[in-house]
């Protein structure tokens, strides 16, 4: 730390904005690239919805753009590619990078009173590992067979079957075909060929990036807190990012291994996920395998269940900070809030099997996973009650950031409660892989996490760019998103109860689903409005960069350390290292102002 004592030199443009080692710039890089992918992922979702509403293909206007070979309607394989890439993009290129990459980078050093991350170079690399991942995932749309189409879960053997020659077809002495001819292609699905290989590679790089980030966050938070910033004085945003980083550091290696194994299956015909008998597609028989398809599911969910918490814990932290700042009231139950975060994270490691109740896993094991999963609802409930108690007898300022944070609380309740249905094994037998789970996913990930992100962006925009976003526009965006988000996603519960399977290109061929089709059309129309409403946010964001009202040091009268330095903060953040005197949520205190910042009052001449 003492290396940086001299006045910050000003680096050149490239060092400052492109190959930056400054945590703030890196955070903002993650924010911007996330926005681009939010647009891509959103467009994919619109196409998915259009197909679901009008599966016969009589979509005005859009139909003309379909290739001739599809015969006037979207091809089913293309549809599979759409929802696969939609989920992949949203999860791995939007939500995780936004929450951990953007907020994690920007906020951690500022909120704990550090000059930068512990390892600035590693931090820079963590963003630069994303660049090839971006390129590869975008390129994957254009390879032979199209982008990956086996779902974001990429279950073998659909995802990793390959056209490697069977052993019996090899000439004596010839190792059977590896990397030859069309060996990349898959007999299972066009998108399971090169597209899948690109998908795996890209995700490996995302994982690498996240890992570098996690190591950095953990070290920074443990070692670089300002004097007086004890662990139990950290704002919940920092706590949530800290716990998320630990989750990521522990879970990611497992995903990495799984991805590598599947990549090897595809590239050099190993058979980690192929059963001993091999499999056959009509007359095409694969080589005999030496593994099992279920292995992938265990590895994948061992990562991906913690990953769903990676995708919401930081939003919980952000929301806690935003709510206290605009409710002008101390956080209710700081310690329970911290412990429940930790409990969610810890329990999150022993519940992965709830994705596999019907997978062929031993049903007795299912019971254990069920009980663990149901227990996770307890810390989730504790958090909700504490947010509500924070709001009770408070004095709310209805800013756009606050509204988004309130929406988080409201929507997380719905997402959490729907989880309980699917945690119950007998009920899940019916709901598994129906639209019920699609509703659940979107309530926790879109209606909760993304509202958390909106709240965070609106809240910290002034600190990032020295200007505030337009309140009116942000409120219109919020109202539309809240309304149409619910109109789009809530009826999905009903579809699920009706038994509508997920990932269906055309549900109308089933009699028992026919009467649900009007709901599908209604949701699509609402989804289009929902999608369009996001343009308001983009316009507001970009416009405010240039035209936004100039923001002072502490526009929200908030307590945490980042609000004691200029907006945007200089390189090195804190001209004087701060000393922390109290917890982060001292609102509604005695005196002329109703808040007491964490940092020790500076001597008058240094004050600003």
């Amino acid at each position, binding site marked *: 730390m003492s290396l940086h004592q001299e006045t910050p030199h000003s680096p050149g443009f490239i060092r400052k904005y492109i190959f930056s080692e400054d945590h703030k710039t890196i955070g903002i890089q993650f924010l911007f690239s996330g926005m681009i992918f939010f647009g891509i992922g959103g467009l994919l979702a619109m196409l998915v919805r259009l197909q679901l509403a009008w599966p016969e293909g009589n979509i005005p206007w859009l139909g003309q753009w379909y290739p001739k070979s599809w015969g006037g309607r979207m091809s*089913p*394989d293309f549809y*599979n590619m759409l929802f696969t890439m939609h989920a992949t993009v949203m999860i791995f290129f939007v939500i995780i990078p936004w929450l951990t990459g953007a907020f994690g980078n920007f906020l951690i050093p500022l909120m704990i009173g550090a000059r930068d991350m512990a390892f600035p170079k590693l931090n820079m690399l963590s963003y630069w590992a994303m660049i090839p991942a971006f390129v590869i995932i975008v390129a994957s749309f254009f390879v032979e067979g199209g982008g990956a189409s086996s*779902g974001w879960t990429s279950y*073998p053997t*659909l995802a990793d*079957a390959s056209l490697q020659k069977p052993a019996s077809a090899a000439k004596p002495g010839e190792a059977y075909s590896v990397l030859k001819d069309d060996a990349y292609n898959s007999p*299972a699905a*066009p998108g399971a060929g090169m597209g899948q290989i690109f998908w795996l590679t890209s995700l490996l790089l995302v994982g690498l990036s996240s890992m570098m980030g996690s190591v950095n966050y953990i070290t920074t938070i443990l070692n670089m807190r300002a004097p007086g910033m004890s662990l139990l004085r950290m704002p919940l945003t920092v706590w949530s990012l800290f716990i998320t980083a630990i989750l990521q550091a522990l879970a990611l290696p497992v995903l990495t291994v799984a991805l590598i194994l599947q990549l090897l299956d595809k590239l050099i015909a190993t058979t980690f996920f192929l*059963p*001993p008998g091999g*499999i*056959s597609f009509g007359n095409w028989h694969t080589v005999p395998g030496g593994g099992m398809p279920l292995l992938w599911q265990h590895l994948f969910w061992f990562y991906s269940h913690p990953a769903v918490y990676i995708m919401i814990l930081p939003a919980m932290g952000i929301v806690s900070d935003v709510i206290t700042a605009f409710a002008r*009231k101390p956080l209710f*139950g700081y310690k*329970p809030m911290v412990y429940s975060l930790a409990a969610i994270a810890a329990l999150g490691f022993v519940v992965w099997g709830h994705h596999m109740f*019907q997978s*062929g896993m031993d*049903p*007795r094991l*299912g019971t254990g996973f069920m*009980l663990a999963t*149901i*227990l996770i609802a307890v810390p989730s*409930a*504790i958090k*909700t*009650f*504490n947010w*509500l*108690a924070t*709001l009770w*007898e408070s*004095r*709310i300022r209805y800013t756009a950031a606050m509204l988004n944070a*309130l929406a988080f609380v*409201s929507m997380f*309740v719905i997402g959490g*409660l729907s989880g*309980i249905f699917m945690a119950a*094994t*007998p009920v899940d*037998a*019916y709901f598994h*892989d129906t639209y019920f789970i699609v509703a659940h996913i979107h309530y926790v990930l879109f209606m909760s996490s993304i509202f958390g992100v909106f709240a965070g962006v609106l809240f910290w925009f002034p600190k990032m760019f020295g200007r505030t976003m337009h309140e009116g526009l942000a409120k219109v965006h919020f109202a539309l998103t809240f309304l149409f988000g*619910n109109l789009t996603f*809530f*009826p999905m519960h*009903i*579809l699920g*109860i*009706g038994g509508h399977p997920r990932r*269906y290109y055309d549900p109308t*061929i089933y*009699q028992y689903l026919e*009467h*649900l089709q009007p709901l599908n059309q209604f949701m699509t129309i609402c989804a289009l409005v929902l999608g369009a409403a996001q343009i308001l946010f983009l316009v507001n964001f970009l416009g405010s960069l240039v035209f936004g009202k100039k923001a002072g040091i502490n526009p929200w009268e908030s307590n945490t350390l980042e609000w004691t330095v200029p907006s945007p903060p200089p390189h090195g953040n804190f001209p004087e290292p701060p000393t922390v005197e109290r917890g982060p949520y001292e*609102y*509604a205190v005695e005196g002329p102002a*109703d808040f007491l910042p964490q940092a020790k009052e500076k001597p008058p001449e240094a004050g600003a």
Partner: protein
Amino acid sequence: MRVFWFLLFALVNLACLGLFVVSPWLGWWLPKNIASFGQDVDNLFYLILAATGFFFVVTQSVLALAILRYGERPGEKSRYTHGHTGLEITWTLIPLAILIYLGFAQVPTWAKMKYINVESWFPIRYSGKNLQQDQSICLVARQWEWRLRYPQGHIPADQNQWAENGDPGDLHAVNELHVWKNSQVRLHLKTEDVIHSLFLPNLRLKQDALPGKTMPVVFQAIEANVKWDPVAGHLVPLGPGLEWEMACAELCGGQHYRMRGRLFVHESKQDYEKWFAQALKNQRLRELPKQVAAREGGNR
């Protein structure tokens, strides 16, 4: 504006609640249950619905009320408090108790569905005994159809051996699952290529088919939908709207959505046997058995 935001939160959540109230009346609800354990499953669903519905109403009401009541007022400050241990304990223990109850309440039904005997619901003890059985059917999924095999005499001598290799006398069918009312059916569920998932909404049943494994699936249909008409030589439905379908619930490639099959529950064993005899005769006539048996046999 405060009132506007209150209304937005309150009305949207009210609409969500309302949708759950009107949907059953509009027919947007669980399809008819015909499984012996189905009523148990539905009851568990309603139990969870009641519990979650209660918490939904409470939390959303508190939130909406807070938005309405606690707007900023000049000169007034929020109440200064950092929490309340008693409250924390209360709202930890109450959900915990309810959730633990919900969890254990699932166990007996799960055991019934999954072909295991459970002696009491707490402590959980599975004895793993095989239940009674009237009928064996081999169901092989592949891209993109369900291939069925019915043994003569309903239950083969060595079930596992039969599930693997079949018997030349078997009846073969595609996408048509026949059972009779109240028959205890055991499916041997397999797949040739990728993971599929057998989904019978009316039977509240779902089970993945795993490459390389034979999954046992048990059910008992307690209502019939068809009857064999020996004169006309085809099945007649027992009433309007008694069409029960079979779907694939695990993404399995391009035509995943098209793995539509149908479930025929005959009104009696005799009726099923009449259909079976005729179908077998037709199959012999078409000389199909040799080809299929050759293919199936050669596979494994």
